[in-house]
């Protein structure tokens, strides 16, 4: 139907505009810096479409996606869980420590680690939820503070007790036995492609991300709890009058958000290092906020935006080698994409609202006639 097509175009228009603007602005920056933007982008595109790099992109996109979904759960209720950062660090650290400490048969070991990660993430986020419900502390403030405590606490916990031998600068939790690790998915990908080069493994966390996405979609859009949650986000007063208990909803949103956040670090500990060490990837929680924003808190939208961000950061590493530009240009691009996307979404929303209002008033006139 043409009307649906128009709606679809409007939906795609905003992020597309954002990407175009980002390309234009970053070209300008590259020109000012004395680089050739066309060379730089061509390098990135060529490098980013190699099979091995695409595997890397997927591996980078998975934690971004999970983190984005964790943030989106809060956003759907107008709760700004800025604490995904701390929640995933805590979740990953405790999951790694617990998974390294015991060995369970087969799949149970992996499941145990995942559950620990989710429970710890949920508890850490639940703390912020409880502070809001019981004490009226704004969740932005409390989650930011809890981030500091989590990150500082994990570092402090790692330094002395888990040093790799006397005098070593590296430290990390005990290595997890193979039964607790995520299997790689190269076999799955190789059904469709040529053999993947050595030392590139598609992390099994991709399955986790897909499950998280399906869970999120069902919870938010199909379940009654999700309806309550969205209603509270759209109009807390009306939701309350409609029987939605506001405090329970805050707790629910924070706990679910935190549980999902707990899974963000799984690529790192269960596919890369086999433990929580000082090479653990930081910053995924904050990146998730951006990814959720660009993906409009939509299960599929967030996937696209996670892939875009992952592509930018993975493909930028080629710039260092070819020297066509500074790899930091992608940070500028990500910033511009977000900024323009926020404006473009607002703009598109207004067009949609006007259109819908016009149609509705037509219906009224039609009925009058």
């Amino acid at each position: 139907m043409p009307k649906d097509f128009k709606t679809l175009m409007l939906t795609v228009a905003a992020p597309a505009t954002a990407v175009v603007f980002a390309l234009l602005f970053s070209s300008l920056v590259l020109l000012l810096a004395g680089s050739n933007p066309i060379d730089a982008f061509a390098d990135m595109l060529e490098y980013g479409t190699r099979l091995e790099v695409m595997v890397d992109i997927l591996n980078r996109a998975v934690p971004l996606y999970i983190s984005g979904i964790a943030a989106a759960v809060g956003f759907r209720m107008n709760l700004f869980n800025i604490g995904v950062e701390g929640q995933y660090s805590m979740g990953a650290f405790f999951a790694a420590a617990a998974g390294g400490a015991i060995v369970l048969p087969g799949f149970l070991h992996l499941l145990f680690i995942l559950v620990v990660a989710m429970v710890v993430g949920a508890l850490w986020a639940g703390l912020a939820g409880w502070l809001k419900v019981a004490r009226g502390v704004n969740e932005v403030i409390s989650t930011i503070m809890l981030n500091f405590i989590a990150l500082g606490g994990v570092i402090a916990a790692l330094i002395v007790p888990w040093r790799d031998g006397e005098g070593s600068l590296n430290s990390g939790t005990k290595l997890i036995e193979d039964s607790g690790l995520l299997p790689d998915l190269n076999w799955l990908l190789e059904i469709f492609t040529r053999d993947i080069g050595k030392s590139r493994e598609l992390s099994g966390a991709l399955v986790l991300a897909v499950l998280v996405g399906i869970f999120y979609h069902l919870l938010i859009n199909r379940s009654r709890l999700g309806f309550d949650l969205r209603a509270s986000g759209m109009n807390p007063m009306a939701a309350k009058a409609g029987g939605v208990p506001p405090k329970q909803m805050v707790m629910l949103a924070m706990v679910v958000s935190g549980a999902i956040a707990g899974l963000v670090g799984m690529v790192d500990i269960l596919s890369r290092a086999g433990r929580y060490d000082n090479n653990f990837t930081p910053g995924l929680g904050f990146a998730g906020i951006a990814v959720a924003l660009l993906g409009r808190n939509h299960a599929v939208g967030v996937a696209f935006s996670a892939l875009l961000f992952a592509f930018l950061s993975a493909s930028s590493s080629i710039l260092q080698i070819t020297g066509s530009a500074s790899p930091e240009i992608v940070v500028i691009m990500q910033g511009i994409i977000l900024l323009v996307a926020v404006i473009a979404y607002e703009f598109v929303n207004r067009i949609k609202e006007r259109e819908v209002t016009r149609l509705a008033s037509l219906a009224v006139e039609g009925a009058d006639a």
Partner: protein
Amino acid sequence: MALAIELIDITKRFPGVLANDRVNLSVEAGEIHAICGENGAGKSTLMKILYGMQPPDEGKMLVNGKEVNFASPSEAIDAGIGMVHQHFMLADNLSVLENVILGSEPVMSGGRIDFNEAHRHLAEVADSYGLDVEADDLVESLEVGERQRVEIIKVLYRGGEILILDEPTAVLVPQEVEELFRNLRELKARGSTIIFIDHKLLEVLEIADSITVLRQGRTVATVKAEDVTAADLAELMVGSELPSPETTENTVTDTVALEVTGLTVLDEDKRPSVSNVSLRVRKGEIVGIAGVEGNGQGELIDAIVGTADISTGSISLLGEDITNWEVRARREAGIGLVPQDRHHEGLLLSAPLWENAALGHQTQVPFSKRGWIDRAGSKAQTERIVEEFGVRTPNVEVASYALSGGNQQKLIIGREMTANPVVLIAAHPTRGIDVGAQAAVWQSIRDARAEGLATMLISADLDELIGLSDTILVMFHGEIVAELDPASITPRDLGSYMTGAARSEDN
């Protein structure tokens, strides 16, 4: 005497609502002129037009005899008009002086603020109008009455000659009201013109020289305060014609559906907003709650629905004590709610109609099953509501903001009615909607009554109250001050109970 303000045939339309319909207003220089009318009569819109916050669609405005067209409040201020908003526009962490000069600071060379000059000018204004303020006090340390005085001084400091006060007494305690009135008389003596918006009739009679009454967006009359009584004004505000008595037969049964006993609700300052209220609504009965807005009706509704905490008292539904039940349990047990403000409490504006129809009933069939939203069932149910209650919409996927007020209201009424409630709390069910929708809403309430619904009807529209109710209770200052028979009551009597001028014996 010269006219300070003259408004001629001012018309202002909003989508679906005619807020001002050829309103005329003449305010003489140096008088206190009150604008009276029920909520929704168009007072605020008129004042926003006069203060340049909104342009009129039609009509002419003259200030001191010259025609004006304000594009913004700053142009109104330049013309000597100042507004004291009901909700003060003050920065708490600045001093009185800083608040007063904010936006019109006397400047020395180099862009620095000339605080000495500001101090001098403030003292001069305060002295000449007899307004007592401490220039260096922080605003956050001031009482409400003092803050209001700062707002008034702000206007005078900018050379305002014409002051608009929007319900200035709403936030004040009686002693502060007296103080305000003393100040206003002083201002008048110094030649200021004051436009005073209020619906508390006794206050209006005390302070105003002339009174203009608005009703449903139209000017009803302009009268001299000395020529009228509170009862006359009440009659002008709510309409003088007696509504034709309902001829529908009595459907009141003996089964008590809702019983409220000794209910007290405290506000944030621990003062009772609902005070020892007891009432009963039987099946097939409509109990009307009359009262000037802000006399505890909203809090009474919240207490019954469960969104507000109660201090003492009990509430029971069909004989079962529900005082400690959650909102959801109450809604599931059959309390339907048409909220007083549909945008704030009734709708998810950006959500489609079918989700709006589910709101409040999302735990029940056909909207959900075993914890999952039944999308098909919800949509089918919404289509039935749309059909049965005449909601005009292209389809049920449309977001509810796109609908006109009347259609939104019909959706809410339909959603509550089709859930087969035991008790319906209907607050201002026809406010701000067109005549056609109004008749439809009334008809559905009457039909439901005939089928045994117990209805508590809260309304500012006395015709509606008298026309629909089997019993009318009057709320004043959180108490029920009268129980009246709509068959024998006149709007004039009702008005005097509502304004506290009379009190029935048996209560």
